[in-house]
């Protein structure tokens, strides 16, 4: 493969959308004629039926895509729910959503004592939580999904374990939400104290 084809291959690989010849010419710093020739040579490399990736010319330009023959395997890879072990941040965030739903990001942050955007986004991407309206202040509220129930082997939310069995400060009075927020604020005031290693 020559330099130009290598560059074209890389550019098509990185683009989310089809790329036009003028765009490729500008990026590769070559003339459009050269690009067309380079694409023709690249197309030979990517002849359909030969590899797992094919080079396609579509309405908007050129793009790389997977060969249809590989779709069953691709579906198995992508359709299977991703269930890597939950990180502590994700477990805490998910516990807050599960027990207090619906609940907003600011409230999660207040209870955890730290912004939890990336944990929330990951749980959302994996389909464990979903958006469910907005709070009176306009913040998006989250609740758990059916996939959440399935992955935790629960029939309904009522099957969630009773939190009191893990409750370390039972003498604290108040609703669960209230107590979580109070504990979170106490922690936020001290976790920042660098004395705590």
């Amino acid at each position: 493969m020559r330099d130009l084809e290598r560059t074209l291959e890389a550019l098509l690989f990185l683009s989310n959308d089809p790329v036009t010849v003028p765009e490729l010419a500008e990026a590769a710093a070559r003339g459009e004629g050269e690009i067309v020739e380079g694409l023709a040579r690249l197309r030979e490399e990517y002849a359909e039926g030969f590899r797992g990736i094919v080079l396609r010319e579509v309405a908007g330009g050129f793009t790389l895509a997977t060969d249809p023959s590989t779709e069953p395997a691709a579906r198995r890879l992508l359709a299977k729910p991703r269930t890597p072990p939950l990180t502590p941040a994700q477990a805490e965030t998910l516990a807050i959503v599960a027990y207090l739903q619906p609940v907003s990001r600011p409230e999660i942050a207040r209870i955890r004592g730290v912004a939890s955007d990336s944990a929330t986004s990951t749980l959302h991407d994996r389909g464990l939580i979903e958006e469910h309206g907005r709070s009176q202040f306009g913040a998006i509220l989250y609740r758990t999904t059916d996939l959440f129930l399935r992955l935790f082997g629960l029939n309904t939310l009522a099957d969630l374990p009773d939190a009191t069995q893990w409750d370390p400060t039972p003498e604290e009075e108040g609703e669960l939400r209230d107590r979580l927020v109070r504990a979170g604020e106490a922690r936020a005031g001290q976790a920042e104290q660098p004395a705590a290693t």
Partner: protein
Amino acid sequence: MPELFRAAELELDLDVFAGPFDLLLTLILREEVDLLEVDLADVVLAYLDHLEGRGELDLEVATEFLVLIAALLELKSRLMLPRDEDDEWLDLEPGEAAEELLRRMLDARRYRRAATELEERLAAESGFRYRSAPPPPHLKRASLELAEAVYEPARLGAALGDLLAHPPPIDVDHMHVVHPRVSVAARLSHLRKLLRRGVFTFDEAVRDADRVTIATTLFALLELHKQGEAVWEQPEPFGEITVRARGGAAAQERAA
């Protein structure tokens, strides 16, 4: 006519803060300014500049400043140390303290070099780019049928229990020293009383005293030296400090 001045009003212009000293204190207590980022030496320099500008020492202001800065120093030294080592550190002998300091310097040095290595690695790697395009929608649909129970509900209960735990309280009482019980003036008169004996040691002067009183006494001693009332000697580092009254000449000068 000297203007009325309190240490709390000392104007500061630091890297992380500009404004009066008492505002800085308030912000530190409210954790809006990180004490670790405040260079306390700069606060002291600002105070010394102020003193130089006034040309005289106001003992009450000096005491107030001393107490506040001592509290900040103590708090900062605590913040710099993990709590479990805190007390050990305070009990260290000078030689051990040097060893501890050395160990920390070596640690810092090791990770500075590791950082350089990581920076070079990142630069060498940044030519590799990864695809970030989302998979085509027709291939990506997490299927409920393929979902199996892989997570333990107890994990959520335990996480919730951790979140309900209140942290152990931290003692910050030493920060609430607002009205010092000890003043430079009181320590000056204490030292002058001792001076009438002609000679005494610093240890005698501060026997059974707390840390703030010791610091204030040292300050008073410096003042005595400046006024020409006393001289002292210390034969070796960390050795005993012997204080002597200075001859009548200085005393007469003072009287004149």
